């Protein structure tokens, strides 16, 4: 198997798996889950092989239909695309977790469709991060957005449907902004291939190029839920089924950021515009996001609502790191995309397991659950420590790098915003851990509930263990992504 065939397989295997799920699974949830697990195991194997390959030989491409770019569509796998590894891992764990969760929480007739949509969502994300063609990027963005809207609404609750509709309207507008920008780029360059656009954009008129940049950034930042474009996120992420929340919060919002990295690749290479104005805006919005997300999270009673707001503040960290446009900042931000996915999936799946067993979502109601579900709450505590950014967990190194990046870029004041945000985050996670372990239960029966079933516990524990391992081996992803960041920033000489 050549690398390019594997690269195509990475998209085609989950795609074929998704469209065959209704045929294989019918309305039998367990069989659909088994099928989806099988598909994700194969896909994860492909992803692992690709990541190893890119570490050995550097970026490589697949030409679809055998047409060389710019005439055909190119799939491009570089170090940033290595995020397929985390997409596959979380996808696999979310599918396994869903076996018991979906049977319990979802209307039975919808369970088969649920797995179909889950696989389609993962297909969309995988395609989004490996494609090297702007219009193809749009197509995959639509696959992942459409399946995302439906997954939010799948529980059939009234609030879920309203949250999904809000998400859909904002998501559709942002997709249109991106499509508009693709049209502008096509008008200026006559091309849709990213590398080719970048090469041909240098002689183009400035105003349309700038407009395209603005539209792309706005559109992608709606998907990423950067403040003040975040209004759709808290409801959608809190109300969705927990495995879906883990995917949406851990991965789907990150595709907006990975898209932003692609936009940077196009524009840094083209040298048509000075990006420092955009970067300043992004750094400021990132800083505001950190503080506002954390601030709102403090006042949340609902555990999943709190986690959803914490996503906004972590998106702020990443956007700030990208906007600093310094070596350390960008490395830290890219690795935080990866680490935050791990951490947030641990927390959401953990919260899902607790809700599954107890039926409560509010922190007050959940007091004392630490005594009856020791493993799950221990995993959540590990996630909480990681997200605050305490050493030696996964969250520490990348936040440290982003802070270093702020100093390197000559804006130490943003390092202060970062520490300030971490303090806020510390407060509300302490509150959560405190109510799990140290407060008198409001509902005595909560001491009687059983530990989560194995199909839920194993994914949670794997993720929690990875949070610790990634903290100890934090250097590996940092040095893995370094050549790509150097290449990107090297084009501007910064």
């Amino acid at each position: 198997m050549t690398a390019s065939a594997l690269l195509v397989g990475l998209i085609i295997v989950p795609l074929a798996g998704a469209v065959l799920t209704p045929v294989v699974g019918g309305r039998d949830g367990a069989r659909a889950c088994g099928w989806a697990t099988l598909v994700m195991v194969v896909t994860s194997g492909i992803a692992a092989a690709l990541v190893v390959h890119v570490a050995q030989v550097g970026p490589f491409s697949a030409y679809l239909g055998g047409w060389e770019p710019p005439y055909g569509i190119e799939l491009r796998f570089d170090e940033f695309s290595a995020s397929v590894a985390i997409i596959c891992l979380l996808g696999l764990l979310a599918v396994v977790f869903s076996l018991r969760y979906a049977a319990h929480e979802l209307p039975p007739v919808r369970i088969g469709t649920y797995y179909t949509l889950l696989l389609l969502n993962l297909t969309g994300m995988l395609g989004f991060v490996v494609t090297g063609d702007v219009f193809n990027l749009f197509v995959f963005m639509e696959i992942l957005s459409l399946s995302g809207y439906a997954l939010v609404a799948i529980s059939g609750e009234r609030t879920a449907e309203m949250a999904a509709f809000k998400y859909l309207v904002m998501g559709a507008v942002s997709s249109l902004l991106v499509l508009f920008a693709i049209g502008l780029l096509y008008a200026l360059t006559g091309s849709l291939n990213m590398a080719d656009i970048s090469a041909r954009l240098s002689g183009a008129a400035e105003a349309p190029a700038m407009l395209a940049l603005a539209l792309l950034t706005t559109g992608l930042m709606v998907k990423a839920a950067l403040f003040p474009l975040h209004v759709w996120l808290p409801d959608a992420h809190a109300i969705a089924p927990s495995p879906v929340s883990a995917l949406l919060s851990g991965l789907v919002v990150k595709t907006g950021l990975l898209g932003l990295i692609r936009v940077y690749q196009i524009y840094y290479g083209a040298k048509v515009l000075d990006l420092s104005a955009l970067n300043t805006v992004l750094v400021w919005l990132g800083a505001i996001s950190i503080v506002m997300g954390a601030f709102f999270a403090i006042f949340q009673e609902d555990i999943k609502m709190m986690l959803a707001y914490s996503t906004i503040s972590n998106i702020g960290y990443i956007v700030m790191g990208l906007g600093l446009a310094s070596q350390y900042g960008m490395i830290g931000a890219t690795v935080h995309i990866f680490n935050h996915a791990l951490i947030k999936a641990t927390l959401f799946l953990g919260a899902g397991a607790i809700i599954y067993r107890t039926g409560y979502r509010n922190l007050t109601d959940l007091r004392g659950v630490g005594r009856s579900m020791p493993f799950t709450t221990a995993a959540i505590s590990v996630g909480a420590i990681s997200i605050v950014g305490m050493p030696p967990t996964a969250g520490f190194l990348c936040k440290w790098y982003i802070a270093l990046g702020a100093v390197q870029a000559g804006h130490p004041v943003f390092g202060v915003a970062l520490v300030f945000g971490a303090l806020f985050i510390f407060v509300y996670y302490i509150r959560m851990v405190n109510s799990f372990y140290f407060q008198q239960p409001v509902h005595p029966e909560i001491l009687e509930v059983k530990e989560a079933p194995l199909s839920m516990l194993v994914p949670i524990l794997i993720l929690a263990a990875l949070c610790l391992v990634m903290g100890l081996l934090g250097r590996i992803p940092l040095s893995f992504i370094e050549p790509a960041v150097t290449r990107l920033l090297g084009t501007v000489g910064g």
Partner: protein
Amino acid sequence: MIAMLWQNIDYVGSVVLFCIGLYCVITKNNLIKKFIGLNIMETSVFAFIIALGVVDGGEAPIMGAGASAPFTNPIPQALILTGIVVAVSTTALALSLIIRIYEHCGTIEADELREME
């Protein structure tokens, strides 16, 4: 600039349409009207991209006997065929959500829905 705008009047048209659509999305209270606004925005973007492919005096890019150059650019047409399908899919999902919201709440006016929450 006015002369340039006049030359690109087709693009100006799609900008105007885009703004009208956005206006509906923001101000309309009825969910279906909001979504019609979104469809207007979609149409404006499609019209813009299709207009990019036009060439003066161009014919449909179908070769064969009797066809003579210049031909219009086939790429935008191909892209927008994809775009239309995407728009239809989004519309189908949005209407389904509206049906369900109506069944649950008995209304699809945004302000009344907000009061219910």
